């Protein structure tokens, strides 16, 4: 099993993961938003990076997950910036 599918299987189970086509939309296939959020956090934890909003948008299909994993393994994700700054005012 590929790395991306293996990560997904940790969250939604291997049987459900095996039924997902590579290009199928995960949400329409029944993966819930909580699982998608946990997948994002799992990727961040495993690869020690903070995913950008653009990275997160790739987590729509198994193919998208694989592409992101490939980039993360190649060191291509960038830790996102900055601690919180205080709220500004006039």
């Amino acid at each position, binding site marked *: 099993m590929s790395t991306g599918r293996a990560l997904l299987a940790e969250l939604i189970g291997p049987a459900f993961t095996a039924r997902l086509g590579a290009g199928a*939309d995960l*949400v*329409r296939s029944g993966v819930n*938003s*909580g699982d*998608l*959020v*946990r997948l*994002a*956090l799992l990727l961040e934890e495993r690869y020690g990076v*903070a*995913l*950008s*909003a653009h990275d*997160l*948008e790739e*987590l*729509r299909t198994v193919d998208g997950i694989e592409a992101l994993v490939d980039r993360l393994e190649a060191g291509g994700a960038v830790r*996102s*910036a*900055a*601690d*919180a*700054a205080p*709220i*500004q*005012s*006039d």
Partner: protein
Amino acid sequence: MATVSRALTDQWSVALAGLVPVPARHRERVVSQVEALGILGCSQATLEGLVEGGLPVAGMDAVGEPLIDFYDIINVGLYSGSGVSLGELGGSVLMRFAAEPPDRWLGKRRWEITCEYRCQATGFPDGGWTIARPRPDVSDGSCDEWARSQAGGGSERGFLAAARGLLELQGVHRQVVAPAVRRVFWEWLNDIVVGQRLRFQWLPPSIRSEPELARGLGLIECVSASLMLETEVRALGFEARTRTGHVLGLVSVEHAWTEFRDDDGQWKFLDPILAVVAQRTGRAHPDFAEFCLGSIANRVVPWDCPAGEALAVHHCHGAPSHVVTKVAGAAVP
């Protein structure tokens, strides 16, 4: 406020002590112990400690385990600082864009949105649907496609309709020039974030659409905030309105904000709650709060629907029925 159990760690004790529970008459949805554990991401012992410490129990299930209000569970998690509750994780993922450079919030982005509408009244398949349309044009975007379909037929889970849209959303930077409105906006943020005179919590629909009720409880979220702010800005002599929208991303969330016609004649966006949610993630870009004073990002869909009103209505058995709407958005290259 609840009393605090000694069995809890400090972070959960603080979260429980600060919780303003949903009044019993406004309870609309309860969750089982298993569901609560999934939302909180905590141990069974912690959940038992929360209940022992005063987390209200809404009833008991068939096997004698407590049922708890969904919003109470979400809100305890939201303030737990555990980093694993669903409310915290969802906010962190939803607002990831707010940590990025401001130029990413601006300009055009294309999105495909899919919407599912489920009428909660079963047994009455007849009746038409009234479904709000997306209005990306209010921020200079466009709706290139919008198609509705009645998925037809009823089921034990209600009656379905669906819609799909191809939108071009435009992130626009608009600076508020009216000093009085700028002052009101920053007072709001200070009240919520610094002074904590209003506490941000998720609220059931029956509270969030009644701003005075929410204010009386010392609570705020996007719908009640937009309605209150509309009233305040109108009292200052400006034309103002509210709008329902969705913030798109890996998870898409329904949202609401206020719009007003500024001294320069241009409509501006007032969205203090989005600034609050971003701030709570601890990662917001320093310019994001100012951005929420006048501007709108290129992942926010405006709908033709005021705050607090349903995006869809099913006219069944002679009266509009409650409809649950789910919206998902995917960026289109």
